[in-house]
């Protein structure tokens, strides 16, 4: 392809792409903290901005020594297991898979013909991603991604779709059904492309093609 079909697309700056606000709780992974101590850790983070400072480590150590000593004193029989033996105590807070997470997976895929990512070109948009989660994890959940080609006759829409599909299939648990559609009215041959994108046989066949897979790999190489 000697000439790009769409030479001058609108470009969003990398820093302006929607992103998840940094969760301060992530920095604190000590699960033995009680509410009061957790609040204090948050105060420390707000004031000092990092867990890598002496005062934070100091407090961490005090908490740890005290909890350890309490734990070892409570144990009467030698036990190799963790302090809390009750199964019910073991409960991690769950971060659900949401649209932002899907967006983060695919927004950094490179466009096949521009040195830019799909997020920067607004081919994928946060608002066009939908996660239909079933509470029961044994049932099939669904992810719908609608892509907007930069121009209505974009011949690479199928390739972009394939790249997104490969990325999602590699990154999502198998209980998700992945649907990739063109956004309504964004392409001249919308139905054909949609059909092609969600045809299992065709996708499988495409993935057998080494050359095509190479192109996809190159697109995925910029993923973060």
């Amino acid at each position, binding site marked *: 392809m000697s000439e790009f079909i769409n030479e001058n697309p609108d470009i969003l700056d990398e820093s302006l792409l929607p992103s998840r606000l940094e969760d301060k709780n992530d920095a604190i992974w000590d699960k033995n903290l009680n509410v009061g101590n957790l609040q204090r850790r948050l*105060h420390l983070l*707000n004031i000092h901005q990092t867990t890598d400072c002496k*005062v934070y480590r100091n407090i961490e150590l005090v908490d740890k020594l005290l909890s350890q000593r309490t734990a070892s004193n409570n144990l009467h029989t030698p036990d*190799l297991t963790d302090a809390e033996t009750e199964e019910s105590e073991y409960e991690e807070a769950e971060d659900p898979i949401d649209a932002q997470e899907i967006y983060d997976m695919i927004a950094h895929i490179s466009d096949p013909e521009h040195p830019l990512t799909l997020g920067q070109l607004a081919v994928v948009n946060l608002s066009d991603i939908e996660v239909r989660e079933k509470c029961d994890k044994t049932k099939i959940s669904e992810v719908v991604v609608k892509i907007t080609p930069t121009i209505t006759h974009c011949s690479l829409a199928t390739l972009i779709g394939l790249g997104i599909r490969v990325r999602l299939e590699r990154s999502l648990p198998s209980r998700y059904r992945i649907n990739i559609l063109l956004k309504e009215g964004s392409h001249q041959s919308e139905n054909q492309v949609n059909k092609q994108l969600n045809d299992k046989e065709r996708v499988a066949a495409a993935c057998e093609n080494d050359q095509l897979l190479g192109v996809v790999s*190159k697109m995925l190489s910029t993923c973060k």
Partner: protein
Amino acid sequence: MSQSYSTQMLNADVISVIANVAANESKAIEVASHIASKISDGELKLVELVICLRDFIISPDHTERKNALCSLSVILGQLPKQILSKNDVSVILDFYLGKFDDTSCLEEILHGISSIIEMKCFYCNQIASVLNPLKDDYQPTQHLAATRYYAFLILDHVLERFQTDILKNVNMNNLFVETFLSVAAGEKDPRNLLISFQLNSKISGTLNEISHFKEDLFDTLFCYFPITFKPPKNDPYKISNDDLKLALRNAISSNVLYEEDAFGNLVDKMTASSPTVKNDTLLTMKACIEKFGGEACFKNWMPIWNALKFEIMQGSDVDGSNAGSTLIEFDNYEDSLRVLTALSAQLIGYKEGAFDKFRNHIFDELKPNFRYEKDLKQSCAVLSAMSKVNTVTFEKILSDVLVLFFQDVNDLNLNKQKLLMLNLSSFFDAYIEVFRENNNTQVSKKVPGNKLAEYKDEILMLLSKGLKGSSESEVTLKTLSVVQMTKLVKMPGYLIEEEVSLIVQYLTETILTNDNKNLYFVCLEGLKATSETWESTVVEYSLDQMLDLLKNKGLSASLLSGKEAINAEKVLKVLLDFTSSRHKLVVESIIGVTERIFENSKDRGEAESCFMLLSCLYSLLDSNQEILVEDVAAKLKSTVEAKLLAAAMEESIYNDDHNLTLISSVLFFINVHTSRSTHQAEINRCQHMFVKDSKVMEIPKRSVMLFVKLLSAFDKTCKLDVENLVSKCVNLLGTQGLEISEFEKLSYLELLAVLTNKWCSDEFLKTVLDIENCSINNLQIIAWCTKGLAMKNSPLAVKFIKELIRLLADVAIGSQVASLFEIFVMDIPTLDRIKGIPWDNNVMLLYKQKLFGDVAPQLVIAYGETDDMLVKANYLMALSYVLKNTPNRITVNYIPKLLALLLQAVTLDNSEVRFSALSTIRGTVEQAPQFITEHVHSLIPLLIDLLRPTKHNSYMVRLTALGILRDFTEHVPLNYLLPFKDDIIAGLGVALDDKKRNVRKLCTDARQTYFELGQVPFD
């Protein structure tokens, strides 16, 4: 010929030189200088040498003649300058000149002549005889570069020795210049060009009568402009592109006579498309402007301006857009502006009228830009570049510009405000430049009245309106205002104190109330910059304000200032950020925060706010230790210590584990930096206070924490009744049925560690500790004492550790003993080593390495000797606790022996142990993957198993296991890993559905690397 140097010897030497000149230069020179020394000692006459060489010199063979002449030239080069008589010189010169038509030997001939010219007895009446053949009979293009080099060298030597004679004699002058022009024509070799350029600038710089040669001289120079040269790989002359460029630039700018040609040609070159050429042109133009002086500039400023104007207005890198993308070591935009400044400086130096003409022309041309808001940035840059020469130019330009700026200042929309600020900005920079030299020490000193000062009120209005009058979301405008305000503060003598304090208040308010990151940082920078010169103003109007805000009680929540709520956390954060290492600010903050702690601690409900204040105080001290020199520490001690001690006894601090620890550490910092001479008295006071008055050694008290930290601060050579303290402490902890909280117990154990580390002798410890008593209480005491001992590498520690390892085999208490192993290597802040303070604790640099070297082999052996799984598990736990706190670089060499244990440890039902074992494996993968490679097949299933979300696979276990799997792809050879590729991809599927997002993220990354494993790289 003298006896000592016979003809045979001379013959032998001459043959040796001839043989070597072509092949081994250094050897030839060595023998040549030997012969030369014989001549200078009078043992040999030059004639004899020539006779000796005669046969070779007249030989019909080219090479022989060449080598012989070369030998002669080399020997001449080695002769001292005053040895040859007048007669010798003229004979040998005639000899060489007679040979001039022997073109195959010209290089040697010129070499010889160049040496003769340096002889003392070469006189100026002989110059013509040398120059004439060079001018008439020598065709530079027909000879090699090396030959041409000697021609230049001759000219250089002549000019060096006979400059005054040439100056006196017009004919000689003309002959010399003509010879030079003929010799320099068509030169291409870099070494020769370098000397040619230097000669050219010497000629035009020192000789008088060159005006009718000026065009020829200039042409021999400018035909090389712009010069580029890439030195070959093994360049013997080490000439760089810059050397040539600089030499050419100097030559072009060496004489004002070149003025007309130089400016004309340079302006032409500005139309070049290559940025490198343009840059060279700009720099050369600047050199010319500076050298040629005002009159020449006045004649030529118009075309120069037009050329520059185009570059500045239309130049490619106006926005600095390609500054980031490629590494360009020059900036044509900036350099063009610098040329303008240079031009402006010359013109004002020449006469004011000249500058006015220049200024009026440019200003009239730029004026429409201001009306139509076009190319404003460039226009302002031009004007400011012109203005920053001195106060006169500054005044003149500013009086033109400011009127334009402020004519309709009252109804500005946001965009216009921004533009105006940006426009002013470049003139602020010019101001700083102009007035800096006047008084570079004191910003607050008076500067002469100036135009910008007349508009001070308007400018301040504009900026404060931009900052305060705009809505919260106008971040760009606000940021811009803050940046400009900071510039105003930096401008020498511009603002008076009241104005600075106003700005400080604005900045403080903004930094506290606005949440934008950029704005935060510019305000912070502004405050820091201000405190460099206006420290006390900043203390008064910023620091004190912030400390006042902290006064409002009512927990951690929001504090009210005016209408807006300001978070105490934010105040403290700002406080920490901007005090960094400014002496006065730090000390004032410490005192202020202490005051707040003292006040707040009186209120029971203020534990949370005390915690925040204390953590801030701790960091203030910790991160600014370099300014806590003795007298500062002494001053702090006298102002804050009593208050801190009083506060420590208040309930909100005393009964709070964190707060009491932090306040004790704060006291530690203050005391550790005080003068050693006071320590003994302080120790006595502490003992009195805690042991005698509070009786901490008789009933358990929380205040022992304060005692521990204070003791750890003081000099270890001071006297202390350590035996009494240790035995009382051991007794107290050993008391049956004692009512003691965990915090207290920990504090007493730490006290033991500090005492054994700093004061207690091993002998006494042996008597007081009961190693036979296996109650866990007693073992804890021993463990903590062992820590103190281990840190000073005491042999007693080895003994105790051995005992504890033995106890690991005890099924009843083994697991509890195992957890004690963590204590040995854990970093306890109380036993930290403070930089620059040798007297505080005994911390041997390599104690962990020694400890690990002692413990690990014993554990491995014991592990191998038992079959009981429970006991084995105890060893694993102990090992993992030690590993967890020992840096990887220490453990990595021992890993091969430990690996079997580690593989078992990751299957133990304890998440801590699993995590610690995994961390060690991960460190090994990174640092010494060769140890891991052969275990990959057994590790992979284990690691995949650890990804399952079970009770013992905690978040960190899963994350670390994933990290190891991903790191394999970087460190393990492909042929080991490829067979597992599909298994791993399938196995990783579990973690794709992990509850924690970070685990999923890492898993996606890891999986992606395995998908690409072994794939042929695309394109």
